[in-house]
């Protein structure tokens, strides 16, 4: 169906192009302009790996800063769509909050108005096609460079070149049109015209997915006198509403928070559009008065359109900015997160989405969060595998009291738990990490590989716990007090280890984390040594038989694997939880040799 429709459109356009060279010129202008937008976005994306992400995180801690950030970056990049997509990615990855994201969208709406000024002020009054040619040449040369930054600059230059060229084509097309046909005969006055042209503006922007392209069309047509001023204003309002389609499409592959941001974008732009339509005549009056004051000629409708575009967007932000919190609450209420799953229900990843792979910072943040998610599920089943309730670990109860309380085996199906709550999440994390490794540069790979290893360690710890569970259940109900005592000893050590892990994850004090990370390594090593000695004594004194001894020997190794693999997970998550300051965090942690040295002194 889609293919047939596309073919029909192509045939229709071909027929139109044969009939009118001017329509061909205008359409080619739009196509070149859209290609320019694509190149420009691609160019800015190549810088998104570094500076843009840092600036985004740094400058969105206060709402007014988010608005400023949105306004400035959109003015520079001339693409509110790119800013929306970046914001959706960041918000889905949990790097910024919904309120900050909304602030950025507010700012982007203000920033996008600079486009109208540039097109009306420069695009139509200067022969910009002259500048387009060298930009295309230099841009293309740079695009072929292997250096990522040079390539990015190349895309930006070529993008600007194409934008200029597209505008020139559209302008020429409409100018030539003037001599053969008067499109103003299709103008509609009054409210009807306002609504019809707003709708046309929406549809045109949805199709082109660029409010800038629509604005250029409107301004060039208006400059050539092919549409009336009032209809042009309605088209501009429509383009403002239609531009939200990019955010909506972008949010389809994003997380819940990203969807909320796209919804906020739609709500904001539709409300702003409604305000502009309702008060269009007072707006026109204000534009007329202020245009005279700003030195814009009474007949300079393109500049007056730019002024109108700025006024209604600024008014929209001014009206809705104070209600950001209410908007956040409203969106939280209507777009609900999936209910927390019961322990036997199938669990899935929370943060991994396609949009998280857009930027290195979002990929990194999502990997950290999903690794913690996987750890949390694995922590649950490891404790249950030892016949202990997970809440016992987080309680303040003495370890001996926990052992007394849980002195009976508590069977749990670890295979079923793995199928439901570990396997898919683990698989998706590894897949996501591999995709990110292939997509981003060396620096990002250095962050991603250890996180992948942390997930492998979690899986190893689970496997060890699963192997240990069978004997654990068996010997906890044994009549041989010696073997029972040894298994309780394993449980005690693992409880201590898991408790310290929880403390590391929950503490905000760096010194506590640094101490505990080395402590869990030391405890794992010390226990391994002590267990071997104890086992030798038990065998020599015939307190346990050889079957028990073999089981105990194997399970001691499994317990050591659990402890050391989880220590590794904690280590990696502590060092890599933020991209900045890794070396400082790692500097004082004891390595394996240093820990070994401490055990030798004991």
């Amino acid at each position: 169906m889609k293919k047939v429709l596309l073919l029909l459109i192509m045939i229709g356009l071909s027929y139109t192009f044969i009939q009118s060279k001017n329509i061909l010129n205008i359409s080619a202008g739009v196509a070149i302009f859209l290609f320019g937008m694509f190149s420009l976005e691609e160019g800015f994306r190549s810088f998104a790996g570094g500076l843009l992400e840092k600036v985004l995180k740094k400058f969105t801690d206060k709402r007014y800063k988010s608005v400023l950030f949105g306004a400035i970056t959109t003015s520079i990049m001339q693409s509110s769509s790119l800013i929306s997509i970046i914001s959706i990615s960041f918000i889905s990855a949990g790097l910024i909050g919904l309120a900050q994201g909304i602030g950025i969208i507010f700012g982007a709406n203000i920033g996008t108005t600079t486009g109208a000024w540039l097109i009306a002020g420069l695009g139509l009054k200067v022969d910009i096609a002259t500048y387009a040619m060298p930009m295309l040449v230099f841009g293309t040369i740079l695009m072929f460079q292997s250096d990522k930054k040079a390539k990015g600059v190349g895309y930006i230059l070529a993008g600007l070149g194409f934008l200029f060229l597209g505008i020139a084509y559209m302008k020429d097309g409409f100018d030539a049109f003037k001599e053969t046909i008067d499109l103003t005969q299709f103008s509609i006055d009054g409210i009807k015209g306002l609504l019809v042209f707003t709708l046309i503006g929406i549809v045109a922007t949805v199709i082109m997915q660029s409010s800038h392209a629509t604005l250029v069309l409107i301004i060039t047509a208006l400059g050539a006198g092919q549409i009336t001023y009032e209809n042009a204003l309605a088209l501009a309002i429509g383009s403002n509403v239609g531009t939200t389609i990019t955010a909506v499409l972008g949010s389809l592959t994003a997380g819940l928070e990203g969807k909320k941001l796209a919804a906020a974008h739609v709500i904001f732009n539709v409300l702003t559009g409604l305000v502009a339509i309702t008060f269009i005549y007072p707006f026109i009056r204000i534009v007329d008065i202020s245009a005279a004051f700003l030195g814009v000629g009474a007949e300079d409708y393109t500049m007056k359109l730019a002024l109108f575009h700025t006024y209604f967007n600024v008014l929209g932000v001014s009206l809705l900015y104070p209600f950001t919190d209410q908007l956040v609450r409203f969106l939280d209420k209507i777009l609900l997160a999936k209910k927390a799953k019961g322990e036997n229900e199938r669990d899935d990843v929370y943060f991994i989405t396609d949009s998280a792979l857009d930027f290195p910072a979002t990929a990194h943040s999502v990997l950290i969060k999903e690794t913690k998610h996987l750890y949390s599920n694995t922590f649950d089943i490891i404790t249950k595998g030892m016949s202990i309730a997970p809440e016992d670990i987080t309680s303040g109860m003495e370890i001996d009291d926990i052992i007394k309380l849980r002195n009976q085996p508590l069977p749990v199906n670890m295979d079923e738990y793995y199928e439901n709550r570990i396997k898919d999440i683990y698989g998706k994390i590894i897949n996501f990490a591999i995709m990110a490794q292939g997509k981003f540069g060396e620096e990002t790979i250095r962050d991603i590989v250890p996180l992948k290893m942390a997930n492998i360690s979690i899986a190893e710890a689970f496997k060890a716990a699963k192997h240990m569970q069978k004997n654990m259940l068996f010997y906890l109900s044994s009549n041989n007090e010696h073997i029972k005592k040894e298994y309780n000893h394993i449980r005690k050590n693992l409880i201590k280890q898991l408790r310290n892990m929880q403390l590391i994850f929950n503490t905000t004090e760096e010194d506590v984390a640094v101490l505990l990370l080395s402590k869990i390594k030391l405890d794992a090593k010390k226990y391994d040594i002590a267990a071997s000695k104890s086992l030798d004594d038990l065998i020599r004194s015939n307190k346990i038989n050889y079957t028990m001894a073999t089981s105990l020997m194997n399970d001691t190794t499994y317990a050591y694997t659990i402890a050391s693999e989880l220590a590794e997970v904690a280590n990696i998550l502590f060092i890599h939880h933020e991209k900045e300051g890794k070396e400082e965090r790692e500097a004082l942690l004891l390595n394996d040799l240093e820990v070994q040295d401490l055990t030798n002194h004991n």
Partner: protein
Amino acid sequence: MSGSKFIAKIEELFGIAPQSEESKKKAVKELVKKLKLKRIELKEALKEECDIPKREALKDSIKILKKQIKKGKDILDD
């Protein structure tokens, strides 16, 4: 001013510049200071503690802290 210097200046101005060796040492120094305080705190706790396993755990922590503080000092002396 060259392009890279200009970017470095802008990054510094906005506080997004990558950390210099000096600021890294500053961060390590801060952490060493905290670890020293932690060691004093644990030594005090050890004096009060009578339970043998807990005393052992405290002794281990103190030994770790000693090693970490030494490691930190070595970095600062470099």
